[in-house]
């Protein structure tokens, strides 16, 4: 059975996390789309930020939690592998990306 969303066809679905990967062929190119339910994650990060507010950095402090596809598409994984900590930290410290932060401290 093929599950469709308009022109998109469902390629992969993860029941545990709700992540779905869709594919669409426009004749010339194949397009890919990953849908990721993030409502819980944003709420969880907010909860953790509040719970750890005012804490100093501990031994192992989770500073951010984000969807995997975002980490890849924003080149964070690559930058982190290559040791470009300034890029990663600038991205994480950016107020626009606050939803993914689980600890308030400035990196």
């Amino acid at each position, binding site marked *: 059975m093929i599950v469709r969303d308009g022109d998109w066809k469902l390629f992969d679905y993860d029941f545990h996390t709700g992540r779905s990967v869709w594919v669409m062929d426009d004749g010339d190119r194949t397009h890919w789309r990953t849908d*990721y339910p993030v409502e819980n994650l944003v709420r969880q990060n907010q909860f953790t930020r509040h719970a750890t507010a005012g804490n100093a950095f501990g031994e192992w402090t989770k500073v951010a939690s984000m969807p995997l596809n975002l980490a890849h598409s924003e080149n964070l994984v690559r930058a982190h592998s290559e040791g470009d900590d300034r890029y990663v930290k600038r991205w994480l410290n950016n107020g626009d990306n606050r939803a993914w932060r689980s600890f308030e401290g400035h990196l």
Partner: protein
Amino acid sequence: MAVLTNTFQTTQAVGNREELSDVVSRITPEDTPIYSLIEKGKCTTYHPEWETDELAAPGANIREEGEEYAFGAITPPMRLGNYTQIMRKDWIISATQEVTAEAGNVQKRKYQKLKKGVEIRKDVEFAIVDTNATVAGSTREFGSLSTWTISNVSRGAGGANGGFNVGTGLTVAPTEGTQRPFTKAILDAVMQQGYQNGANFRHVSVSPYVKSVFVTFMSDSNVAPFRYAVSQSGERNTIVATADYYEGPFGTVMIHPNRVQAVNAGVARNAFFIDSDMLSFLWLRQIQEDRDVAKTGDADKGVIIGEGTLKVHNERGLGVAADLFGLSSAS
């Protein structure tokens, strides 16, 4: 410059080959964390070899005045190698099904090809994280990550390292120890060994269950303890599906949940610590479609095949916390 009328361009062609391996590498890189992280290269034989050389450990260097020289022996570099592994995915669709399901056989075939391409990439990831030692011969197999790692390891009681055997030129599978829960002490032990051996661990690849244990390390005595909000029934658990950044004592580490490591208890029991500079994947034959499969009968056949191997530049840059409960608190 203008293009002459009727010039046949690649954008109009329908049968041009596409680099399938490039396509599948770009699709959902998060499905195969380790393979996506490491550099991809080429090899020209089924048994690529490389060398590692290292500096002697630092020690006291105090000499007497007027002393005659004495000369130490040179330790030759260690010659390492791995064998390529042939991986294949195939399909056969009856001609009737081909036209029944949807119009356009090409689309149907293309879809299968992509699907099998992604599947074969996950098989590459599986071969990296399993515990199979190198096998030479015609049914070759490359030694997986855990068979190489001997320096930065934490194993359960009775567990023993495998490692590369210079005599045979093959890696040896590690001996499994008694399983134990993942703890911060295990994490810190591997991180510290790695630091002392010159590794720069930036990524940790674990089974989704181990990642959920990792999250509890935050509730350290140094920080105020807290509990996560329990997700309401029917809501999805997001903890196991995210990339997490941790500020730790040895720098920033990114934790990847690896769904390929959730396939069975054998691959879930290891947590891999990776310095991506120390690892690469060499393709002898990139993932490609075999377009010369003979058509017989009333069906469309397809084969996707690739041959490659894992290159561990230096196992000191890698770590493993083995024998963990990887699927649940007791398995």
